[in-house]
């Protein structure tokens, strides 16, 4: 029976745990991805996920809690990128490149020198969605609730600072604090999802659902509602397909997201195509 086949993976606890974390991670990345895409920061998602790798390696070597070590490292990297970018001498892209590749390189050297480099690097790069532990579920859920609360309560300031930072500052919004908060949310999201979907694919999950949603609506509020749904559904469908097709879970999740983007793009027609030309992705 097809129905029984479809339900087969749910017999396994590792699959149920992996699915839960992947769906929450998809929704979380989709939500924050709205800011990433609209701020033209797609590369920051990619870069921060690499920067966090340095923190993960350092915390492993120093035997410090992974979330603590990678968290501090990620937030410091994000703030550094923000500060260097604001100087406007070398530009945001170069700032991201310098900080994140430097951080990644330090992590690589630490693992080469002190750790099991190959195994750790593969785990970080590609994730291990089927090896989810209770700590991962708790961490992803906690970050998701925290990020949701911050975005709901700070919605107006986040919107203003994203759309028009200079005028927002004049109107009394603490734009610098908003940027640090956004970097902190991004870093925390990357840290808790990194072990699940891997650094190489985090940036895709931070961009693809939000970009797909941008093709569907002209409203910022609706983007914040729809993008997490697109991210969560991509993760749910991707996880199930990965089980049945025996493919990489993280790769399949992103492939599903890209297919969704392609479908929306095709269905959207000329109007969507004119919009994508101006998208900051």
């Amino acid at each position: 029976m097809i129905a029984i086949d479809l339900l087969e993976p749910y017999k396994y606890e590792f699959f149920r745990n992996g699915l839960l974390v992947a769906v929450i991670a998809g929704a979380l990345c989709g939500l924050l991805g709205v800011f990433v895409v609209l701020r033209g920061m797609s590369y920051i998602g990619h870069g921060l996920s690499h920067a966090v790798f340095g923190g993960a390696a350092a915390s492993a070597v120093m035997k410090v809690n992974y979330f603590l070590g990678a968290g501090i490292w990620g937030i410091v990297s994000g703030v550094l990128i923000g500060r260097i970018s604001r100087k406007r001498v070398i530009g945001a892209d170069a700032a991201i490149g310098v900080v994140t590749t430097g951080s990644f390189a330090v992590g690589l050297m630490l693992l080469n020198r002190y750790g099991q480099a190959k195994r750790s690097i593969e785990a970080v790069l590609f994730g291990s969605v089927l090896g989810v532990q209770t700590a991962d579920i708790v961490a992803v859920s906690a970050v998701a609730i925290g990020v949701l609360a911050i975005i709901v309560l700070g919605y107006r300031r986040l919107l203003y600072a994203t759309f028009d930072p200079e005028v927002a500052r004049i109107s009394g919004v603490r734009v610098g604090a908003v940027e640090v908060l956004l970097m902190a949310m991004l870093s925390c999201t990357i840290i808790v999802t990194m072990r699940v979907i891997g650094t190489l694919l985090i940036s895709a999950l931070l961009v693809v659902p939000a970009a797909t949603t941008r093709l569907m609506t002209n409203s910022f509020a609706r983007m914040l509602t729809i993008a997490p749904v697109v991210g969560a559904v991509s993760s749910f469908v991707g996880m199930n397909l990965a089980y049945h097709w025996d493919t990489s879970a993280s790769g399949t999740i992103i492939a599903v997201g890209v297919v969704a983007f392609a479908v929306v793009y095709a269905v959207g027609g000329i109007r969507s195509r004119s919009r994508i030309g101006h998208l900051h992705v």
Partner: protein
Amino acid sequence: MTESIVRFGGVSATYGRILALENVSLDLPANGFVGIVGPSGSGKTTLLRVLLGVMHASQGKVTRKSGLRLGYVPQVESVDWNFPVTVAEVVGMTRSAGRWWPRTTDTERSEIETVLCQLGLEGLGERHIRELSGGQQQRVFIARALFHKPDLLVLDEPTSGVDVSTRHEILHLLVDLHESGVAIVLSTHDLNGLASHLPRIICVNKGVIADGPPLAVITPEVLERTYGAPMQVLEHGGMPIVVDQLEHTISHRLRGSGQ
């Protein structure tokens, strides 16, 4: 004498080691309508930034009237027109600081509609900002600044990149706002189309070159000191009209060559 709402006392401002503004002293009265003119890089935008408080003076002092509310209208070229935001959302943004409730309240919605009506944008609140004409787009950002109920409205190049009809529309709107009691300061490159219509012009090039009504300020001597290029000034209907001598020379040469 009208009360001063902003006073610059010997203000200088720098970007790193580059001096952008030097020893500027001026008063902006509560009923003022002032145009800041000068060439690119002369310090017009810096002067506005110092006035708004987003940039600090490296020397001198800026004194603002206590509780002064400022409204700022940026250049439309700096706006991301593809950002997913409606007209009503843009106007409501100015009340973001200190607000924790994400949804627009009924009172705010009603106030937004009132401001939109005031600026001739009634019924356009739910439109995406890109779906408006050039004049309407500029009005949306003026509406956003007015929603803050400012005492002083600051506009950076409000007629930059707009056609003649939109320029007239914006100028009439600014005159209406000024008559309703809002003080206005704007920067502009547009000497004939905008600056010469204003009651007071300040010519800047690092420092203040001249300050006064158009007929007193727009003179060949002041313009040459401000722009570093010779210009002719004609008078028509009590207003100065600036003729760029270089353009005149070029057209004369082209006519002479038969082209």
